[in-house]
């Protein structure tokens, strides 16, 4: 049976792209067709295997309570043993399918988008590395494996953001992404170390058993700290406030990369991590509260920035941050189902949006400013359709995918606390507004005379079509087939649609789209006037609340200043002492050599004086040394 084979060989899913990375990186790099061919073949194989795993989960009744686990020892020394392995449950299976599917789509899309790029082979090598790392992360059996692949995912993200390494902005963005996520990883690593010390194991299954017992015995105090430290990792990786700053800059990478890594898959690693170790968070109300509020604040905050941005990819980036905030919010209010559901639908429609944006950018020769676009709906009908589907999906208009998942999150938030719900609803209104703004500015209105757009090639249209279909049915179908029965934490719940909540959010979304039409479509309401009316708010939003400037200052002035101060200390105090000792020796020698007068008779005098002294010492002080001769 294929699904049995796929389950037993699930470790092949990350291994295949890893092998492809090595092969392409070492030998095939210079042959574009072979590189892409190998990467694609491997992606297809991984996708099929992932589907097989998904099938196996259903066929063999693997649930979150009874996962499928394989382990092999990786490091074993006295006092510490670390495993690698495979951990398959419905959440994993869903992630595997989503990641392999989106990455396959992006790789097909890149055939067209990256065509003729001098680093074509290198690009596919990096993509394969990323896919390998991400899949390895997804099937992690313990924290150490998760951390290993977590970092590798960070590396591939670094490489891909800096893909155009000759651009200063790309190189700085890559650096920023790595360092910002590193700050989060610092917390994650500390949390992992705490767990290792407390429980002597990092295995998810074992921790899942040990932690409730520990909480019963010793309370939640220390574990809350651990959970918050671990949560720092997701804050960094999933672009949560205040470590979100790297994600918009990450758009310096090629657009397919933005779609795959910085929208659909990698950035949800943080969400996935929290879901994966929900057995820890679930017991700690303070930690859950933190997750929920971080998510809600991030969602609102990023949406408010997206309102005024001008670059198409930046708008999408802030919308990604905002949607990730939604997922965190869902986790924080205790609904793994809603979070994972939104993760899945978001992967589809956000990849779609990015790829469509990529098609636009490609058509306009790397034009990124939405106000330099306009009227593209005639020349690029496929892209226009794809973008429209994506916008409707993210805005939460029924029956598109985003509607169902967002509704579940709102429902969960409403059941938890009304301030969170309120923030989530307002954010969903903002989301609909800025996405509609993007759509109207880019595709409606008059065409700009300088632009000579053309429709995307077939290799780019196919992924748009596939993802478009998924963005339409990706919410409705899982909803009818009871997604929540499989992907869940704790007992399954059949909440169903709450018509009041769904109605409110849909109405708000439609209203926002209408407002956007008035402002940017028909031009009835002037956006400039509005900006002019509230200059402070506008500037705050446009400058992203000056957080980048704050970090810049921290990095340059504070850290750099300390570094310079310490270097000064090193040069002038520590080395000063060292060199001072050297100089002292020289001076002493310089002084002492003056006693060499060259007067032989002086030397003689000193010599006899010394002999006299020794004699006197022998006679009066230590007569015993002479063996009693003198007495």
């Amino acid at each position, binding site marked *: 049976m294929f699904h049995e084979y796929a389950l037993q060989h699930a470790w092949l899913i990350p291994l295949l792209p890893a092998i492809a990375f090595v092969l392409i990186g070492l030998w095939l790099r210079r042959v574009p067709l072979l590189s892409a061919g190998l990467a694609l073949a491997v992606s297809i194989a991984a996708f099929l295997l992932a589907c097989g795993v998904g099938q196996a989960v259903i066929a063999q009744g693997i649930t979150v309570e009874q996962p499928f686990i394989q382990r092999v020892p990786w490091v074993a020394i006295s006092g510490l043993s670390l495993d690698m392995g495979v951990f398959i449950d419905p959440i994993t299976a869903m992630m595997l399918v989503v990641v392999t599917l989106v990455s396959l789509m992006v790789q097909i899309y890149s055939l067209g988008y990256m065509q003729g790029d001098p680093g074509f082979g290198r690009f596919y090598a990096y993509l394969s590395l990323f896919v390998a790392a991400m899949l390895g992360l997804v099937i992690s059996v313990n924290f150490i494996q998760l951390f290993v692949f977590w970092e590798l995912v960070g590396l591939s993200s670094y490489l891909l953001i800096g893909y155009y390494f000759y651009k200063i902005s790309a190189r700085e963005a*890559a650096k920023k992404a790595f360092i910002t996520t590193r700050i989060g990883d610092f917390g994650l690593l500390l949390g992992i170390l705490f767990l290792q010390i407390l429980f002597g194991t990092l295995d998810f299954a074992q921790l899942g058993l040990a932690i409730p017992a520990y909480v019963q015995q010793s309370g939640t105090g220390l574990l809350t700290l651990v959970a918050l430290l671990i949560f720092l990792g997701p804050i960094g990786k999933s672009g949560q406030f205040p470590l979100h700053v790297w994600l918009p800059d990450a758009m310096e990478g090629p657009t397919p990369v933005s779609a795959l890594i910085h929208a659909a898959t990698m950035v949800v690693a943080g969400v996935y991590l929290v879901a994966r170790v929900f057995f820890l968070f679930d017991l700690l109300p303070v930690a859950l509260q933190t997750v929920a509020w971080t998510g809600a604040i991030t969602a609102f905050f990023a949406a408010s920035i997206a309102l005024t941005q001008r670059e198409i990819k930046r708008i999408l980036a802030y919308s990604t941050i905002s949607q990730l905030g939604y997922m965190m919010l869902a986790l924080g209010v205790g609904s793994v189902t809603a979070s994972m559901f939104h993760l899945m639908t978001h992967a589809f429609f956000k990849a779609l949006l990015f790829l469509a944006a990529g098609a636009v950018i490609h058509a306009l020769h790397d034009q990124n400013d939405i106000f330099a676009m306009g009227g593209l709906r005639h020349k690029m009908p496929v892209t226009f359709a794809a973008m429209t589907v994506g916008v409707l999906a993210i805005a939460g208009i029924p029956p598109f995918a985003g509607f169902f998942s967002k509704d579940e999150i709102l429902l969960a938030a409403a059941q938890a606390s009304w301030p969170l719900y309120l923030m989530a609803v307002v954010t969903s209104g903002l989301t609909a507004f800025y996405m509609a703004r993007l759509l109207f500015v880019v595709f409606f209105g008059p065409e700009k005379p300088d632009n000579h757009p053309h429709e995307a090639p077939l290799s780019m249209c196919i992924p748009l079509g596939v993802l478009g279909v998924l963005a339409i049915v990706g919410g409705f179908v899982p909803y009818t087939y009871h997604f929540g029965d499989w992907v869940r934490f704790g007992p399954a719940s059949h909440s169903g649609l709450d018509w009041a909540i769904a109605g409110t959010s849909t109405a708000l979304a439609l209203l926002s789209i209408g407002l956007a039409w008035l402002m940017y479509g028909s031009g009835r309401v002037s956006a400039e006037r509005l900006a002019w009316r509230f200059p402070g708010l506008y500037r705050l939003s446009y400058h992203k609340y000056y957080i980048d400037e704050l970090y810049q200052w921290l990095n340059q002035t504070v850290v750099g200043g300390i570094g310079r101060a310490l270097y000064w200390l090193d040069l002038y105090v520590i080395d000063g002492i060292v060199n001072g000792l050297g100089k002292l020796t020289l001076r002493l020698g310089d002084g002492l050599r003056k006693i060499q007068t060259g007067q032989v008779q002086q030397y003689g005098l000193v010599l006899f004086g010394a002999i006299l002294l020794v004699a006197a010492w022998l006679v009066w002080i230590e007569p015993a040394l002479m063996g009693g001769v003198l007495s």
Partner: protein
Amino acid sequence: MTVFPFLTAILFTPIFGMLVLACLPREAERMIKLIAAVTMSVAFGLTAYLYWAYDFARSGLQFTESIPWIPELGVSYALGVDGISLPLLFLTMLIGLAAVFASWKLDKRPKEFFMLLLILLTGVAGTFVTRDLFIFLLFYELVVIPIYIMVIIWGSTKRVSKEYAGMKLTIYLLLGSAFMLVGVLALYLNAYPPGSRTFSMEALAQAHQLGHFSEEFQIFAFLLLLLGFGSLLSMWPFHSWSPDGYAGAPTAVSMIHAGVLKKIGGYGLIRLGLLVLPLGAKFWAPVIVGLAVVNVLYAALVALVQKDLKYVIGYSSVSHMGYVLIGFAALNSVSINGAIANMFAHGVMSALFFAMIGHVYDKTHTRHIPDLGGLAHQMPRVATGFMLAGMASLGLPGLIGFIPEFTIFVGAFRAYPWQAILAILGIVFTALYILRILANVLFGPRRPEFDHCADARGLELVPLVLLGSVLVVFGIFPQLLMGMVNSGVEPMLPLLAKLHQAPSMLGGLLK
């Protein structure tokens, strides 16, 4: 049963090669380099065989040899390796081989250079394989002379002159060895009564169990050893030789010095400090941890503002040695495993770094970071080497640096949680300075002034391939290294367990 004396063979292969070189005319440059390469290949091959043939399960000292030399003093030519010294021996030969190829383009007095290089490698290797303290000191002093000559003849003058760098390096080495010598003599004289005195390390390690070392003596003698080995390991504040020395030294010397020579400090602390004077180690451990945290953070922050590539890596190695010191001072099996493994890991990555910097410097004649940039255009292979070394240096999993650091953290966290947290904060600063040089040197717009600079090719690739593949293979299969190290740490377990009960510095003072 007579066994082939592998260790003697390994030790004398470079000496033999050096003698052959001595007989060659100085004009036969190609021949000289070839012979040096062959010599080191043989030595490396033998070492790799030993690494493969070492029996993990049996652990302890293997491939032992012993010939009495000065029986009146208890000195004997005793060799042997265990899980602690074998990785370091392997590292020596690995870096030695890479260093020969990294100096392939050298054209100033190659005969003398390679002769000195081989002597240097013999000296370093000798300190790791000997079981006799006297021989240990002998080999250690053997190291100092070639280092000095090589720095002042083949070195480069930047912020400080090469003469200053060479002198600083040598004086620090000698000063360290002076403290060490006093400590060693104190051990020798106190361990056993006259007549049965010995320099054998195993016998000395027995002495404290027989109660021959009082606690006060251990505390005093350990301090001497700590000053000696600590300054060799660039423990703060005895670190300032390291950046200046590396900056002044030629590529091969930087590689060997940062890669292995420094590790004699850590090796000595474990072999002599911990095994011979356990109570002393326990007493000073809190102090070492404190200094080590300063090492990690201080050096990382200073590395952040350096303008010369070699200074960045010089300070980076100071920072990494902080991790080694923490691992040592946490005094539990996990952390000591990590400390030894981290010495190996850091050796490989810093050697690769220096090899790559050497290449860049050869081609562009500058190491000033603001003058460099966009080298990935002209030198993609060198850029790969930089990336590998850099990523290993910031502890990226999948490369060699991660597991050692992680084990150090696990061990240190158990013993000194707060200091460990501060040290772990170092990974953020490490990322900052590593990414800074990677970005500023490799990436950015193409600079036409470097268009004439060729990428590494042919034999110049050997260091990159050799060290790079070790970085990756040992990173993906860390058990290759950790299993070996663990077999060396396992015999210490009873000692460490006993030490766990012993009073620490604070406890001792309160008593």
